[in-house]
């Protein structure tokens, strides 16, 4: 048996899915699973939803606020009612977020004349990390450090970006990033400008989302620290970790995550 069944929950960590797994599926949610589900409070499918209002400060202390009722953005330079608002909820040390910032910067610069506003809001990392992000990637659109806020917890799963129409509803969302996404954003902006109805969630392109009950392939990869072969697999129906010396250690359950540091 080369597959590991995930039986408890998947949480979302900085840039990575956390996997809790074992060899069997319980008949009903464990207390931990139920707690995780209650705590999540995330927006399952944001397209069509109204982006919640927020009131944060930019990294230099000026207001950065979105009023979902009036669809007004209060940002450095004054209040605006954009035709399209791009909101990137990100973490400064996420590689994909950094690459995405370059394209968002282009959208910000070239889209301003077409009433497109771009903002970035952190859901992980502190203000110092956000400032370094701004410096390193030449970001000039407003950024707010909102890590730890309820808003960031509700909207930040998966480092998403939302395009919000001038009625306050999310017309497009994506998680993850590829350079061709900028073309999609321009196409969405053109549709919104021309009055066409848009409701589009970017299909998953990289990184399959695992969920409860899915199976994860056995992990057979080198140890980052030593280069020796490690494995997490099911042997004779039991989950086991095989260390760099080839010794097998049975485990009752496992928690792992993909880490981008």
């Amino acid at each position, binding site marked *: 048996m080369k597959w590991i069944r995930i039986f408890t929950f998947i949480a*979302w960590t900085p*840039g*990575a*899915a956390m996997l809790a797994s074992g060899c069997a599926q319980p008949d009903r949610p464990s207390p931990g699973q139920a707690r995780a589900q209650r705590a999540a409070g995330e927006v399952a499918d944001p397209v069509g939803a109204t982006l919640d209002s927020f009131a944060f400060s930019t990294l230099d202390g000026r207001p950065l606020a979105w009023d979902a009722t009036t669809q007004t953005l209060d940002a450095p330079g004054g209040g605006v009612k954009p035709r399209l608002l791009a909101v990137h909820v990100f973490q400064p040390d*996420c*590689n*994909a977020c950094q690459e995405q910032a370059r394209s968002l910067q282009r959208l910000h610069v070239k889209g301003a004349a077409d009433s497109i506003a771009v903002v970035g809001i952190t859901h992980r990392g502190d203000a110092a990390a956000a400032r370094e992000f701004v410096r390193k990637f030449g970001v000039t659109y407003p950024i707010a450090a909102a890590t730890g806020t309820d808003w960031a917890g509700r909207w930040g799963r*998966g*480092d998403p970006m939302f395009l919000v129409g001038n009625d306050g509803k999310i017309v497009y969302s994506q*998680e*993850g990033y590829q350079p061709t996404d900028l073309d999609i954003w321009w196409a969405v902006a053109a549709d919104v400008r021309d009055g066409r109805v848009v409701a589009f969630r970017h299909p998953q392109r*990289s*990184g*399959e*989302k*695992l969920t409860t009950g899915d199976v*994860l*392939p056995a*992990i057979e*990869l*080198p*140890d*980052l*620290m030593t*280069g020796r072969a*490690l494995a*997490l697999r099911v042997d004779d129906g039991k*989950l086991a*970790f095989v*260390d760099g010396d080839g010794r097998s*250690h*049975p*485990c*009752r*359950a*496992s*928690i*792992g*995550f*993909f*880490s*981008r*540091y």
Partner: protein
Amino acid sequence: MVHLQKMHDRYAARGLFVYAIAMHDDDEAARRLNREMGITYPVFQGKGSKLGDRFAYG
């Protein structure tokens, strides 16, 4: 990572296996961070692996 290290310290003897799959571009930076943070649970090198390409997300 720190909290997972605490879980590892506390529950490994009771059968909980904590691990990470590193997707960092810079292996040495990742190793240095692991050392600095006192990470002792296994960290698989996942960058460029089929597993990482398929399942790493975000």
